[in-house]
């Protein structure tokens, strides 16, 4: 089974995140406010080399960048 979004470099994980985000946004006001923070991520990471940390990056931004590379490579 191939999915259209695969061609754009989107992973299954990202697909689920997008689908879940839209489900949360479709809720009634009260439920939506309680559910929406679940979609937010503040994770940052830094690659260490030679005992020194590299530039810290947002995981979400790095993943988006990866998606574009994958789409170009595929």
């Amino acid at each position, binding site marked *: *089974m191939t999915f*259209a*979004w695969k*061609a*754009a*470099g*989107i992973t299954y994980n990202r*697909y*689920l*995140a*997008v*689908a*879940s985000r*839209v*489900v*949360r*946004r*479709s*809720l*009634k*006001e009260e*439920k*939506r406010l309680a*559910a929406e923070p*679940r979609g937010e991520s503040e994770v940052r990471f830094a690659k260490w080399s030679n005992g020194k940390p590299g530039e810290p990056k947002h995981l979400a931004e790095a993943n*988006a960048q990866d*998606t*574009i590379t994958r*789409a170009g490579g595929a």
Partner: protein
Amino acid sequence: MNSLRIARAALRVRPVAMRIPVQRRGYAEAVPDKIKLSLSLPHQSIYKSQSVIQVNIPAVSGEMGVLANHVPSIEQLKPGVVEIIEESGSSKQYFLSGGFAIVQPDSSMSINAVEGFPLEDFSADAVRAQIAEAQKVASGSGSEQDIAEAKIELEVLETLQAVLK
């Protein structure tokens, strides 16, 4: 004559002997027509090993109903409605954002999804507004990724709109 009487006695005895194994029925065999359902989200368990009669799932390979003693299987779920027919006969519907359903050989079933809400928690107005927005992005001149994501959103929203009617 004598041997005939013995044969007749044997005939009378046998039905009693056959009834004995039936009386020694264990608890597990007493409820063979139920599925033990676990419906879990990362932040909540909606069902926790609860006995239900039937579960209808929107699998990628097609809509399917699962009863007890179903073939063990793993199914990827489309964003859509899962319907659960409980022991009392009443049915509950949840909209799941996509995930997996796993049927184990012992009539237990696990459904994992990221988000799941009963249908009455959704706002038809919010769905309509988002469809308009996603359509704009999908047919716009954004990046390939933005368009692909808008199409995923449209798929979910259109399913939602169809079930909310």
